[in-house]
């Protein structure tokens, strides 16, 4: 493991973005993600790139809009209340079809909430947050290494589809240190940014960055085009992990992010008691990995359980994916309470009826 280094999740995000060619970073302090901005303030000037602390999250996301429209790779980072403020800008960015990466290191809400780990921004990330018919690609890494890989992928996916990509983790992921490796990555073939508003560059017409379509026909046509793009993303970009799903199962857990690791511990505990439980771990929260459910649905006796650090937000997507074919259960903690493996195992025993 010679080339592995121990890094804090938040710092690894920054380094991953630098590796991916992020040219500008616009941030604003908020716990538990402030280390991203702190890291970027140290590193970006050293590599001749731009770090700027904005006066607010509203300003930061609009700086992102400006830089993304000019065709450079750009990232911003925040935590829940800050993402709420960015929602307007994210909608504009999606409407204007600009690529960028947005980090959300989630804390408990609503309102000012708390600063401990939570997953309560699932709806906000996957179902809008801002206004209008837009979609955000949402990556949910479960380890610092996966965070490093997905942040880099996020820039590629954003550029490929001209769409904002969010990488979402909880406070644990941002604050913990784990070994990471910055692997050599094959260079992706990506479309040239001929749409960028960065000067005429010999073009006949100025490029315009815009999301305003006052004629209903034109706005609908624009929306239809966006929808086509979203269908394309759904086809190509779904990512998930199946864990312990090969044999007949008593139940299948659905869980993402660091919590999925706690669920794996619970699965190991249950195995010792003769209860076989599988795990679907969505890595993309949107597009949601519906196909993962189809793969395991005939192998689970008691259906599924959505395990969340929120009050039943992902549960709705699990229900949609299962579509009444099997029972769907729920276990969630919130407010920064992190479930223990034993707690999850107990809940599952209650459903499947104790040891076999």
């Amino acid at each position, binding site marked *: 493991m010679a080339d592995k280094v121990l890094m804090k999740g938040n710092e690894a995000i920054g380094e991953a973005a630098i590796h991916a060619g992020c040219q500008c970073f616009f*941030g604003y*302090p908020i716990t538990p993600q402030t280390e991203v901005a702190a890291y970027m*303030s140290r590193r970006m000037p050293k590599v001749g790139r731009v770090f700027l602390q904005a*006066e*607010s999250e509203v300003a930061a996301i609009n700086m992102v809009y400006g830089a993304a429209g000019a065709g450079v790779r750009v990232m911003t980072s925040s935590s829940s209340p800050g993402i709420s403020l960015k929602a307007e800008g994210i909608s504009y960015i999606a409407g204007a079809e600009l690529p960028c990466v947005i980090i959300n290191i989630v804390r408990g809400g609503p309102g*000012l909430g708390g600063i401990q780990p939570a997953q309560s921004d699932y709806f906000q990330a996957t179902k809008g947050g801002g206004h209008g018919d837009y979609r955000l690609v949402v990556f949910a890494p479960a380890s610092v290494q996966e965070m490093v890989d997905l942040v880099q992928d996020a820039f590629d996916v954003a550029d490929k589809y001209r769409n904002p990509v969010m990488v979402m983790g909880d406070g644990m992921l941002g604050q913990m240190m784990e070994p990471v490796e910055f692997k050599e990555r094959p260079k992706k073939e990506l479309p040239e940014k001929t749409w960028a508003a960065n000067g005429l560059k010999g073009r006949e017409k100025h490029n315009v960055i815009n999301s305003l379509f006052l004629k209903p026909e034109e706005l609908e046509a624009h929306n239809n085009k966006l929808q086509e793009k979203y269908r394309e993303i759904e086809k190509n970009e779904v990512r998930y992990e199946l864990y312990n799903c090969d044999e007949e199962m008593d139940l299948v857990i659905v869980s993402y992010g660091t919590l999925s690791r706690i669920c794996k511990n619970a699965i190991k505990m249950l195995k010792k008691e003769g209860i076989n439980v599988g795990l679907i771990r969505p890595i993309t929260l949107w597009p949601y990995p519906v196909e993962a459910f189809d793969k395991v649905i005939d192998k689970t006796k008691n259906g599924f359980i959505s395990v969340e650090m929120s009050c039943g937000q992902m549960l709705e997507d699990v229900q949609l994916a299962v579509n009444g074919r099997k029972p769907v259960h729920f276990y969630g903690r919130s407010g920064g309470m992190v479930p223990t493996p034993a707690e999850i195992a107990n809940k599952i025993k209650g459903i499947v009826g104790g040891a076999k």
Partner: protein
Amino acid sequence: MYEAAHGRAPAVATGIKRAVPDSVVFTYQGDGDLAAIGTAEIVHAAARGERITTIFVNNAIYGMTGGQMAPTTLPGQVTETSPYGRDVKTAGYPIRVSEMISTLDGAVYVERVSVDSVPNIIKAKKAIKKAFEIQLQGLGFSLVEVLSICPTNWGLSPNESVKWLRDNMIPYYPLGVKKDATTGEVK
């Protein structure tokens, strides 16, 4: 007591004061809060001459989040997000909030004080009293900027911090009444 979203206290205070005009309403805001994310709210509350009082605590840093650069951070000052010292070429210049607010007609009383010594603390107390009196008289918006220390995030002992405030902050942020419309005084 209301807890407002970061920077929005003057808007929340406006809502309270308009709903219950005979209540005494004040906001208590840090420099990151008031001079960064909440600039629009404070400027417009002052411009409207809201009959509220703002106590503005300026410690030249974001304290709560662990010591990042604030709009009031001095040129060259090292913070977590200005690790090489605030470079005015990229991070701009500190904002003198009291002077800025004084330019607004709705602001009736604006004073900058400091809590680095007993005489200054007594002056601060007087200023705050006066600011509230102005609100009670229904004259308009009042603001007291209080220069204060942040030993933890400055990385200094309390004694060193007081010295740092005197040597660095007061020269940049001169103390005194910036505006008193009750006497016609504008500095």
